[in-house]
């Protein structure tokens, strides 16, 4: 999984990164820039579906707002949850829709399986890059991506296509966190959140 290291550092230096990431104009520009760089690295060409990206963004923003109150409980884990929710929505736009439209149309691959694989790789790489920037911005170090990712990449794509919320669990696994397979979208049920709440006596 190739991440956009230069972009990660640029984003992390922005003092307003946390609020910028939830602004459509910033997010749209950042996503496009990361996609262009990732395509250049992979030697691929991709066309981005504007409306699907915009819909995924606002659905994501809505979910983040819903769980906003948990950010003070564990700010770093909340950023992981944000990234998981983002991956859920952008992958849903790529893999899960009933119609023929997809978030990314990748042109350089001959067969559908390669196409699906490359598009999902690009999308996941961008979300991981944003997460790393959010971690740096919060004062944490970059997290290492799970070395065994290749072993479960196919099941990740299959499960995300059928049930987009599982993307949250797989992202946690990629980042070395414990996934909550039974209730991935309940951010308050995440182990780090529950531990922080127990420590602070909120539970």
């Amino acid at each position, binding site marked *: 999984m190739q991440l956009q290291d230069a972009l990660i550092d640029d984003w992390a230096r922005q003092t307003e990164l946390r609020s910028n990431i939830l602004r*459509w104009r910033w997010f749209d520009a950042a996503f496009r820039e990361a996609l262009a760089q990732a395509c250049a690295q992979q030697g691929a060409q991709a066309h981005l579906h*504007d409306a699907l990206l915009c819909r995924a*963004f*606002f659905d994501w923003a809505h979910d983040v707002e819903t769980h906003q109150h948990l950010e003070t409980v564990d700010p770093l884990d909340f950023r992981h949850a944000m990234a998981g929710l983002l991956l859920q929505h952008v992958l849903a736009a790529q893999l899960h829709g009933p119609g023929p439209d997809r978030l990314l149309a990748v042109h350089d691959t001959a067969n559908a399986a390669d196409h699906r694989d490359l598009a999902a790789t690009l999308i996941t790489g961008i979300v991981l890059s944003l997460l790393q920037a959010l971690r740096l911005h919060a004062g944490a170090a970059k997290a290492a991506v799970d070395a065994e990712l290749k072993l479960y990449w196919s099941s990740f794509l299959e499960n995300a296509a059928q049930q987009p919320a599982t993307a949250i669990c797989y992202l946690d696994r990629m980042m070395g966190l414990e996934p909550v397979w039974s209730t991935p979208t309940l951010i308050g049920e995440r182990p780090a959140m529950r531990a922080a709440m127990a420590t602070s006596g909120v539970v």
Partner: protein
Amino acid sequence: MIPPSPPLLPQQSALTTAELTLKDGLRALGLNVQLGAHWLVEDVGPKLAQQIDPDGITGRREKLHALVDSAARGTLSTLVTVLQGASAKAMADEPYRSLNFTLLPLADYFSGANRGNPSGLFAEVFYWLLRHSLAARTDAHARHAMVHQLAVDEAFWIVQSAQAGLAQRLDANTATDIDLAQDHAALCALLLRALVTTEPVRDTTLLPWAHADANTEPVPELLQVVLVAVLAVGCVTASGGNLSWAADGLRLGQQIAMARRASFAAALAQGAHDDGAALSAEFKFIFRHI
């Protein structure tokens, strides 16, 4: 049958109504001439040629077809030239036509700065935003639809009479940021509801007085045209600079309207029960995240 005169809203001057009715009539004539010429070329011509030379043996069919095509195109060209000449004299609209103009914060259009014609700037800007928004669509509804400027003007007066104090509060220095955000979203919601009520985007093949039933929901594609215009201006806020290029605003409005049309339609449908609160909340959510 003579169509009834459009109802005159209390504040709307007879002169404005007459001028906008004339403009709308001229534009409808132009669109109908184009639709008529296409109908002649694509429908009438081939059928006539088929009748005269059913087997296509004599070779007269191609000649007749070419004759009808040439006549229709010649007539269309002449009429378009005449109409463009008349339009140029009646309407100095080049900056609007080429999208070379800037947008103001929504409240400014309701500030009544031009006491002689309070709705003038609003009717002009929103007419052109709607027209460009409609032109970007390629669906069947859009092909036969046109924007009626008089209906845009009517929406201004509906908003003005419904919320007389809202625009003033938005300009007031004493208002807090929260008040401003809430009022701005409420003003956008009010405007969207007014535009849905007055139906400025209509099917030009229908009779002019054939308004849709007030209880029926707007055609989704046409709701989107209106939503794009409201979002384009709604996204211009005092905190983000006082001016914004119309082309940029329209692009942003189109992106958001395509992505959130279903949410806006659902919120709009609730309007009769919650007085626009859900619609206002949807605008507020969007404005928090642009």
